[in-house]
């Protein structure tokens, strides 16, 4: 290939990347506005953006909608949709990063034992401790549970000398089972009639979104996301192999642990506000790699974008399929994710 040909193929790939990023952004905005307008009370998209404009810059538009509509859109649906974006993006980049450092295409936040740690904390708050910290009790305890689970995974991996990728995954799975058993024991010991809130929480849901809580997942997502992005070269190298990565000057064991802890931080915060939502972290990076290839400089932002869009639509489905009931979103993501994997298996075979 001549230099010019290489040059032109590079520009064309660059253009393709920009085009994908642009269409992704547009898709996100459209999905967001649909997610807000769809529901038990349908609201026209024009009204949705009108309310947004008036909230950001009061007085821009004449109010043609009722106070009730405004309350539904602004107080309930906007934070819910934004939470969907944050959680989807967060879980997807955690999945992508963990897949690289474990070299396991099936890695996702569940593997860390984090989700089960979060479940344990939330169940404890819901059924046993009482809401001693007010409404934030459940998220705070869920977050503590997640962090605790991560520390236990790290401890076990030290104890079992599990510095390799496989053994770290096994440590995560083992701890996850143990904590899940504990969580189930808490449910069994708890009051039967309170259990349905627990079920809702275990299956995930975005219904508890509130404006003043969104700041926590937002900050964590931005900081941790930027950190991961700055390490995209190292993540690329980790997919080749531990020893090769080491010969490229990467402190492999330490780097893997750091990515685990950062992943735990993101997942912990997301789980705290949305419950356990499976399959996003597992599935989204695969789709993104098909679109943009394997370079983590593109996989991470792509995963964030696709994860956000995916969870918005999963939530739309969850709210509309059994209207006016909210179906737990985990059912939707599990169903879609499972079918997706069956499809992926069939495709690989061909």
């Amino acid at each position, binding site marked *: 290939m001549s230099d010019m040909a290489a040059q032109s193929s590079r520009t064309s790939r660059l253009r393709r990347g920009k085009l994908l990023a642009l269409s992704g952004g547009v898709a996100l905005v459209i999905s967001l506005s649909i997610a807000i307008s769809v529901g038990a009370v349908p609201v026209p998209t024009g009204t949705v953006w009108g309310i947004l404009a008036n909230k950001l810059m009061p007085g821009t538009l004449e109010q043609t909608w009722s106070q009730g509509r405004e309350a539904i859109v602004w107080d309930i649906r906007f934070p819910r949709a934004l939470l969907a974006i944050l959680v989807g993006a967060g879980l997807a980049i955690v999945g992508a990063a963990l897949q690289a450092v474990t*070299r396991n295409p099936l890695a996702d936040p569940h593997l860390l034992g984090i989700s089960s740690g979060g479940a344990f904390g939330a169940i404890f708050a819901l059924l046993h401790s009482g809401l001693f910290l007010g409404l934030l009790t459940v998220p705070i305890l869920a977050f503590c549970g997640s962090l605790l689970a991560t520390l236990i995974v790290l401890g076990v991996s030290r104890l079992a000398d599990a510095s390799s990728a496989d053994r770290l995954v096994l440590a995560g799975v083992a701890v996850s089972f143990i904590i899940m058993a504990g969580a189930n024991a808490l449910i069994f010991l708890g009051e039967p009639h309170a259990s349905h809130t627990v079920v809702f929480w275990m299956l995930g849901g975005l219904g508890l979104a509130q404006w003043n809580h969104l700041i926590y997942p937002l900050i964590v997502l931005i900081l941790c996301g930027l950190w991961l992005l700055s390490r995209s070269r190292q993540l690329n190298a980790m997919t080749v192999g531990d020893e090769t990565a080491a*010969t490229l000057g990467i402190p492999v064991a330490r780097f893997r642990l750091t990515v685990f802890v950062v992943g735990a931080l993101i997942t912990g915060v997301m789980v705290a506000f949305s419950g356990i939502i499976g399959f996003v972290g597992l599935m989204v990076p695969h789709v993104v790699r098909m679109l943009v290839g394997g370079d983590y400089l593109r996989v991470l932002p792509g995963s964030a974008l696709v994860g956000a869009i995916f969870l918005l639509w999963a939530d739309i489905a969850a709210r509309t399929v059994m209207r006016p009931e909210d179906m737990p979103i985990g059912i939707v993501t599990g169903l879609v994710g499972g079918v997706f994997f069956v499809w992926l298996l069939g495709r690989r075979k061909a």
Partner: protein
Amino acid sequence: MSSAALSVQGLSWSPGRGRATLLHETSFDLAAGRVLGIVGPNGAGKTTLLRLLYRFHRPTSGQVLVDGEDIWQLPARRVAQTVAAVLQEQPSDFALTVGEIVSLGRTPHRTNFGGTNGAHDRDIVERALAQLDLHGLAHRHLGTLSGGERQRVMVARALAQEPRLLILDEPTNHLDIRHQLEILELIRTLPLTIVTSLHDLNLASGVCDDILPLKNGQTIGFGPPDQVLTEQAVTGAFQVEARRERLEPSSTDHLTFHLQT
């Protein structure tokens, strides 16, 4: 490209306190630009020795000096700018292209978030791709390549690192004859100091300036092939009966092996 001198002093390794020593004390000096072949039966400690040289294992005793500097006194990234390795690890399929894998070789030379020397890095990657005849494959996914092509990708990746000491672990494994000879030819012509483990003793004597045979973690010699790979030495190390025979019409020496009776 230039080459680095390698000096190994009293080097030994065991996986942990109270565990068996996998490599017993060994010392040797390899002058810059020479090719060292490490041979020995399975489990003799070849990979262990190589891992010590590319700074994966920390020595239980002794030192590895590259151009006089102890590699464990330097940051990993500094060492990676001098020492590259082609290993037997097979990358799992994460949809990286050949070009992306090769450009990983620039990792130790760059800071996070790219750095400033993009054009320079691209030139080096292009050169490494050309050197291994991989240009046509640059946009292919690694998973779609044959074993020989993958091995070439991993060598190109190591060359993009611009090392002065190159370490190869069984570079001819799983390759057909033609690709074996191509890799060996490359080893012979690269102006680098090279340490490689090889299974085939005849190939090793053809390509290496020095040979270091290992047996049960013990170094049992160091020197030019014809001095080290004697019939007795090979017979002792590999527990086979080795005979040095002369090939006609090329009149080259060739070792043949027979099970001991």
